[in-house]
């Protein structure tokens, strides 16, 4: 009989198809995976399963007769990003942002925002910052020269197009001018603003200092938090603008974001970002800024890893936190079981617990025997499986991806590729600077969009990443993200299970375990416990993938296959 073990994870759905006959070993015919198409365990997941079973049928020329599911380990996961709350609060007080790569002039200028057109009138007292819209650079420079001659005190300029240097060269080479401010036309005219440009290779020093910034923009002492947040937002940049927006309506001071953790005994306490998260199982609900959630298995928060030798960048990241939640879900596998039954002529059945199936599948790794600890590094959770049961911890591959996305300023799909691959910077059309410091020569010139950029090396393809980081720095941050999440949760899970005996084998399975970097990171994290950390190789050829799906078929065959 043709049977399929089906494992639906938070990120990936896997199937293993085998011919099972009573009294003989299963004959493995097909193993494949696809992204999960719904919330884990819901009937929506059937779409991905159906696709995989159809692929199996095309390949094998026969239909899968029976579907096998695990008793779902009912965990859903969610991620919340803190730090945004402060940035949103800031918008009521000021607009702060880094500016273009080719500013003109240097120094700091502060004054009221005024358009180029309005400089045609009689000069007002006090310093002004000229806002140049889509005007031609020759005309803009002429307008500025004329205004200055008539007595306007122009302290700086903000330019919409990419011609700050062209304007500066024709007006005043030393005047700080930032360009490529695409929304220059929407800045609040008449508001106090400050512009700073540092010399090439240097970073701004005044706007990143909350006290000096506060003085320049006339921020009051009760707006100290806004000054701090604005200063942080532009720290480490070569050029920046900060504009004072309307004074916030009083009575609503920006409050600290707070999340309350509810323990199993009902006691509540605020989430302390500086402290380590409690062991899995201790927090059962949360309240507050991240929404109200009940029936939690685990809550984990990690701060973003900070680049030690880039203090400005480190400051911009410092207030960001990623919080991962693992929730116990009430929904059972009933819906999915019904849906799968309709796909298979002989129906579908639940044959094992997920943990038992995973251990059985992992044990097909050559040389592994029956490993006492199997760690499943999945998308949403790190699960520790052993005979006595399962420990689930919140935060795994998806949390790493989120952190990478925050560090790079990239979308999740791009961050996922950046997470999985080595990086290099395209130095010239023909040379790559790798993250270990080595250089290589390219036979064909690198595509123009990758030039001078940090790129992920996806096979032979260069995938440009938005962050301007040295490859060595990015490697450190990427590894730290994995260590902070996966290494941290592996240790928590093992501790929660009572620790591992010296010499014990810890077998890693799941999507994250196929990442070469992860084995070393986890092994070094567990160095002090003197255990052997190895990667699963299911059936000797599928790497750390499909352990549960294979384990389900093995369970079925072991029970007689009928």
């Amino acid at each position, binding site marked *: 009989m043709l049977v399929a073990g089906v494992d639906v994870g938070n990120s990936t759905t896997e199937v293993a198809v085998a011919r099972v006959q009573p009294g003989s070993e299963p004959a493995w015919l097909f193993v494949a995976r696809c992204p999960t198409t719904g919330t884990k365990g819901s009937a929506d997941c059937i779409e991905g399963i159906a696709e995989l079973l159809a692929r199996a049928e095309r390949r094998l020329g026969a239909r899968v007769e029976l579907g096998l599911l695990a008793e779902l380990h009912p965990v859903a996961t969610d991620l919340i990003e803190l730090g945004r709350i402060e940035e949103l609060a800031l918008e009521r007080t000021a607009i702060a942002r880094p500016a273009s*790569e*080719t500013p003109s002039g240097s120094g700091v200028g502060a004054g009221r925002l005024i358009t180029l057109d309005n400089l045609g009138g009689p000069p007002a007292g006090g310093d002004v910052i000229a806002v140049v819209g889509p005007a031609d*650079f020759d005309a803009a420079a002429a307008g500025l020269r004329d205004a200055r001659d008539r007595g306007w005190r122009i302290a700086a300029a903000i330019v919409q197009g*990419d*011609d*700050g*240097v*062209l304007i500066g*060269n024709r007006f005043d080479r030393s005047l700080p001018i930032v360009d490529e401010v695409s929304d220059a036309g929407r800045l609040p005219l008449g508001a106090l603003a400050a512009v700073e440009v540092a010399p090439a290779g240097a970073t701004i020093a005044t706007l990143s200092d909350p006290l000096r910034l506060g003085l320049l923009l006339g921020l009051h002492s009760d707006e100290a938090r806004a000054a701090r947040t604005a200063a942080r937002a532009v720290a480490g940049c070569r050029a920046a603008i900060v504009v004072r927006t309307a004074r916030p309506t009083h009575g609503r001071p920006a409050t600290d974001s707070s999340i309350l953790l509810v323990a199993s005994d009902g006691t509540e306490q605020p989430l302390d970002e500086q402290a380590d998260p409690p062991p899995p199982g201790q927090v059962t609900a949360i309240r507050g800024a991240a929404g109200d959630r009940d029936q939690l298995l685990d809550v984990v928060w990690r701060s973003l890893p900070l680049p030690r030798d880039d203090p400005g960048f480190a400051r911009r990241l410092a207030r960001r936190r990623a919080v991962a939640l693992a929730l116990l879900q009430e929904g059972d596998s009933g819906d999915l079981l019904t849906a799968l039954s309709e796909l298979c002529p002989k129906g579908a059945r639940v044959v094992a617990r997920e943990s038992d199936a995973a251990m059985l599948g992992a044990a097909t790794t050559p040389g592994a025997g029956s490993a006492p600890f199997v760690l499943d590094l999945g998308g949403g959770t790190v699960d520790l499986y052993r005979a006595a049961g399962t420990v689930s911890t919140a935060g795994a591959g998806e949390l790493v991806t989120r952190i990478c996305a925050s560090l790079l300023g990239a979308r999740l799909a791009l961050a996922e590729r950046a997470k999985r691959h080595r990086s290099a910077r395209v*130095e*010239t*059309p*023909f040379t790559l600077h790798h993250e270990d410091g080595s250089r290589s020569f390219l036979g*064909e*010139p690198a595509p*123009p*969009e990758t*030039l*001078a*950029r940090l790129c992920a090396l996806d096979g032979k393809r260069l995938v440009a990443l938005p962050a*301007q980081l040295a490859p060595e720095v990015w490697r450190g941050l990427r590894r730290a993200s994995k260590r902070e999440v996966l290494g941290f949760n592996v240790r928590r899970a093992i501790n929660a299970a009572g620790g591992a005996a010296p010499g014990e084998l810890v077998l890693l399975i799941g999507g994250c375990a196929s990442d070469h970097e992860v084995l070393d990171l986890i092994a070094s994290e567990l160095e002090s416990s003197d255990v052997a950390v190895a990667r699963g190789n299911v059936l000797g050829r599928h790497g750390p993938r499909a352990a549960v799906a294979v384990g389900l078929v093995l369970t079925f065959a072991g029970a007689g296959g009928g």
Partner: protein
Amino acid sequence: MSEPLVLALVCDAVVGAELAAGFEEEGVPVTVAIARGAPLILAREAAKTAALGIGIGADGARLVLVLAASPAAPYLEADAGRARLFGSNAARIAAHRPLALG
């Protein structure tokens, strides 16, 4: 006259001026000369002469950039109407800065 760092051979003075403005914005010197021919041929010609091995050719319609180390195909192309941005990107190639591609 010493040989140019980057050379642009263009059929049209207006296109040449826009190219030069793009270079000026990036702080990279360029030599613009008037010449007649197909953009790719002009660009190859220019790349051979330019000290940085970067040559630009243009007629009234197209702009082409060629790297002397890989002259067979254009490295960058654009409509003549986008000469300023093209100049700025060509200058960024010379300065090893990331390009601004739409």
